[in-house]
């Protein structure tokens, strides 16, 4: 039976690699069914399932939250997004990152950071030790 090689990769890892007789995916322009020797195609994926039909009739399901699908006659590559991507979600993340920066900036006036505090602790300890040594000398 004819098969097509299918790779599913995300930015973080390679999710799946193997042969399939048929690949189903949800493209942004509609459902796609890709059989071996499909014409070269490049399309955006909508959030949804990527289904692989294997030679023994078994099916494998993967969920992608968007991404890109590349088809060559004997190769299907899914460049999957692992994170939910939408304009408003991205916007929220961006606002969060800005707030983080402001908070870090505000911290300067408020509490000391740990490294600074540790340095002060070491200094204080050294002073205490010196004092103790001095006291011992005097009492002798």
């Amino acid at each position, binding site marked *: 039976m004819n098969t097509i090689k299918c*790779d599913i*990769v*995300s*930015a*973080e*890892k*390679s999710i799946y690699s193997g042969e399939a007789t048929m690949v189903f995916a949800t*493209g*942004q*322009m509609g459902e796609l069914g890709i059989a071996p020797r499909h*014409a*070269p*195609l*490049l*399309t*955006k994926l909508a959030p949804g399932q990527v289904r692989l039909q294997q030679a023994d009739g078994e099916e494998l399901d993967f969920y992608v939250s968007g991404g*890109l699908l*590349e*088809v060559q006659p004997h190769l299907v*590559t899914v*460049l999957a*997004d*692992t*994170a939910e*991507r939408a304009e408003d*979600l*991205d*916007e*929220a*993340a*961006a*606002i*969060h*990152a*800005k707030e*983080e*920066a402001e908070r*870090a*900036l505000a911290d*300067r006036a408020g509490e000391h*950071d740990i*490294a600074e505090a540790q340095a002060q602790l070491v200094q204080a300890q050294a002073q205490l030790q010196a004092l103790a040594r001095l006291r011992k000398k005097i009492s002798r």
Partner: protein
Amino acid sequence: MSGAREIVSKIRSVKNTRKVTKALEMVSASKIKKSQELMSASRPYARMIKQVIGHLSAATPEYTHPFTVTRDEIKSVGYVVVSTDRGLCGGLNTNLFRMVLADMSTQIEAGASIKVVTIGRKASQYFRNISGIEVVAHTANIGEKPQIADLIGVMKTVFDAYHNGELDRLQLAYNDFINTMAQQALVSQLLPLPEAEDSDQLLQHWDYIYEPEARELLDEVLTRYVESLVYQAVLENLASEHAARMVAMKSASDNASDLIDDLNLAYNKARQAAITQEISEIVGGAAAV
């Protein structure tokens, strides 16, 4: 004997410190391997997305995306600085920051203003104290398994600024992992994207069917590509962090061992001196009687 007793307690405390540094060393050694695996796991995506970009830009020769255009006037330069969250990793962050500052001062001399986006706590602690530099976005606590999702916020901030014309250029700074013993601080240009060198290889006999249009795809793919570049920088930096920490902790353990040897010698001498003194006192006492 009081001197000897003090030395014993000192030896004990140094031994405890050595235990900690030794443990940190071994933890880092095992983490290097994991972060290297993450690095190699992220490579296929970057390779494939680069291929796709090659096809797309070959298919749309008349369209130039803002990411690929070098602007005539550089008024503002952005920096994405990747650092570690925690310290105890030798001069890793300091070397990087020094390099970034040198790069920044050449930009300032050229008349550009500076905006910084920090990834990792050390970078934000450092750059917030420097005048003339604006930290516009920050993220930290990425942990041992960074994900693209951790970076979306900061990247969106710089992409928006770049599209709005608030940034004319974007630099990426991180520590490149060469091997366990060597990490290289790098400041490289992220945007506009440097020209691809192997563009003539992409002139192929067939082309894709594009759904939707190639232009629209190109917009999306370029964003993903730049994100994956930064993501890889984060991974490189993570591996560098563990490697640098392992080396720093190894030398700390070695130093502790040396110190213990010295202290042992001092202890033996003090003990011997005490014994000798006691004997001479006894002998002296016996002679007096």
